[in-house]
């Protein structure tokens, strides 16, 4: 009997394990190996160059630009997105009269907020490219129509505005999803807790700070990891939307774009793999830190 069980378990697990090794682990392993070679992407062979590719990363000005920009995005995008997401989600649930229900029409809002999630990121980048067009774009036309023509800018072509413009798109495209995520988390909080807070005389801010936030902490933590990974990527939006792309003059360069250009334009797959491995460890560190940092004992609600 016991024998059959082992066989059954093996039969169930092995195919999945094999698929995982072939399609997930082996590409990783190959990338690790290639990062130590000078593979050009078209040659049948590659020479082992040791850590030379990694040593090169530190002196590559454009790559360092990319690291800086990704770091800025990593600071701004998750914070703003989660802040907005939490604000909108609480408003949808508790912003109404008396603090017991959502504002009028909250269901419709929730659907509208989710819309950007239905579009592919490339489509979003193309659309926002039109919005940011300095002469005919929605943003500048709107400013001019409102009599604020002096505020109109060449959003994607000015070095200090280009990165914020890209981050705005990333935030716009992801807020809706986190509104829905946090709404679900708030829904799971027992209504009595909010009622108790109300009876104790807590205002909107206090209810949020003392009741809602601690009880949706796990969702916020997961959101941080996801958004952090998205902020370390940002390749699609930058590639489609920005000047250059990655410009002006490296102002919106991201690691993914450097990697892509190094591999496919410069034909240095070995060096590009080193960038990929560096990015992999950055992402891994981020995920571990974000999850560990928030590891506290869980609140028991029963």
């Amino acid at each position, binding site marked *: 009997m016991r024998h059959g069980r082992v066989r059954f378990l093996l039969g169930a697990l092995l195919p999945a394990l094999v698929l995982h090794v072939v399609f997930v682990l082996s590409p990783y*392993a190959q990338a*690790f190996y290639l990062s130590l070679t000078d593979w050009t992407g078209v040659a049948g062979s590659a020479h082992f160059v040791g850590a030379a590719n990694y040593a090169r990363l530190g002196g590559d000005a454009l790559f360092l630009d990319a690291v800086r920009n990704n770091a800025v995005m990593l600071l701004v995008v998750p914070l703003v997105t989660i802040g907005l997401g939490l604000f909108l989600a609480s408003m949808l649930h508790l912003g109404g009269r008396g603090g017991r229900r959502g504002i009028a029409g909250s269901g419709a809002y929730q659907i509208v907020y989710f819309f950007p999630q239905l579009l592919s990121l490339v489509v979003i980048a193309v659309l926002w490219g039109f919005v940011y067009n300095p002469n005919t774009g929605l943003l500048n036309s709107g400013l001019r129509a409102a009599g604020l023509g002096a505020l109109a800018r060449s959003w994607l*072509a000015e070095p200090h505005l280009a990165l914020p413009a890209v981050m705005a798109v990333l935030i716009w495209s992801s807020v809706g999803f986190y509104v829905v995520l946090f709404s679900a988390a708030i829904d799971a909080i027992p209504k009595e807790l909010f009622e108790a807070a109300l009876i104790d005389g807590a205002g909107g801010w206090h209810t949020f700070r003392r009741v809602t936030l601690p009880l949706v902490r796990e969702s916020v933590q997961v959101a941080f990891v996801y958004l952090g990974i998205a902020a370390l990527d940002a390749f699609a939006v930058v590639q489609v939307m920005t000047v250059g792309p990655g410009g002006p003059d490296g102002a919106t360069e991201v690691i993914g774009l450097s990697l892509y250009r190094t591999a496919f334009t410069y034909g240095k797959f070995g060096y590009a793999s080193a960038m990929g491995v560096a990015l992999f460890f950055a992402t891994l560190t981020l995920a571990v830190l974000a999850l560990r940092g928030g590891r506290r004992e869980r609140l028991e609600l029963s």
Partner: protein
Amino acid sequence: MQPELPLRPYPTRRSILRTAVTAAASAPLLAACVTSGKDDKPAAAGGTKSATNPLGVPPDAALEVVVFAGGYGDDYARKAEALYTKEFPKAKVDHKGLQKVGEAMQPRFVANTPPDVVDNTGAGRLDLATLVAAKQLSSLAEVLDAPAFDTPGKKVRDTLLPGVVEDGTFGTDVVALNFTYTVWGVWYSKSLFAQRGWTYPKTWDDMLALCATIKKSGIAPWTYQGKYPEYINDPLLSMAAKTGGPDLVKAVDNLEPNAWKAAGLASAAAAFAELAGKGYLMAGSEALSHTEAQAAWCQRKAAFIPCGSWLESEQKGVTPAGFDMVMGAVPSRSSADVRPVTAVQAASSESYLVPARAKNRAGGLEYLRALFSNESARGFAQSASTLPSVAGATDGLTLSSGLGSVRDAVTAAGSDTFTYRFRTWYAPLAKAVDDATGELVNRRIDAGAWATRVQKAADAVAKDSSIQKYTR
């Protein structure tokens, strides 16, 4: 209500480390997968060489042709295949028209099973310098010295426009033959200029004077494809090449010390800084894509736009009737210029390659001989309204206004055509030049800082031992 919290929503440190170690340990086992192709050459089965079969094509061998099916389509390539099968009726031709040639061909080069002919063109093309360094390409000298397909008494080499053979040369070998001939210049609407009484300037001083007049009339003098600063690079580098002549271009391409600080380049950079400084660039140009800037130009919001000779076909659906676009040569910077004002930057593109490990290498070469025949090139000029790189292919044809102006520019230039090779040889340097020029025409750096920046990038490429060097 019981909130359902997942028990372990995150991986533990231990499980992550374990995974990482497993991955690292399995690396050597799997490492061979990507680069497992063997480097030995296949024995190319040759046929017998004869007057009608100068390259010795095995008459019944199959031929695989991969063509970029972009703006020009791929019908012209099929027509050349028909010429090939007329010669070798027993040969089976496998034609593939692709959009992303690089993506499809990369694994086949790695596995050493490439097709017999590749048209390495389009956004996702493979880097030629990389292919050459990996010894993946055949020398095309044999086909260049073969008799021309349908021009009796001439070799293929002698039927090509100036610069075509050089464009395909890497080191000592010709490895690519480019089928189309591109000329760069400054475009304007002939009808607009006639209506306003403007004449296309021959010198930069005249250009600035005309720009002042144009600006007064309410039209922006220039626009450019700001999202891709390489477009405004072309007139800048053309102007420098006219001032400094072949020596300047050679010094730049050979990565000579201080090549970018030559007087010709400094004065050309200053000219374009001045164009921007005087407000002669249409506001907002710096953020416009090529389609947006070119559309604005077609709507007569700007008078000049720099572009290559593909502009007319690219703007086919957008150009209003009676716009009559024509291309002018970049004006001379000074009367002391080494080259005349008629000199143009011209280069061939649409690179046809024969992979070194092609099964039917002789067939691939023979296909190029057919493709570069007068009959095939003439058909292409008619259907694609683009200049092919075969001399005289457009003789006697009635051409559209843009293509006609391009042909006239080539005729007027005679042997005074030039091209920079650093863009194809050293892609990282091209990127550095584009970025610097973008900053220059947005007045964030001046001509001196431009030269310093670009020189630094050129020096870095020169010093980098991992980049294969070429000289001309």
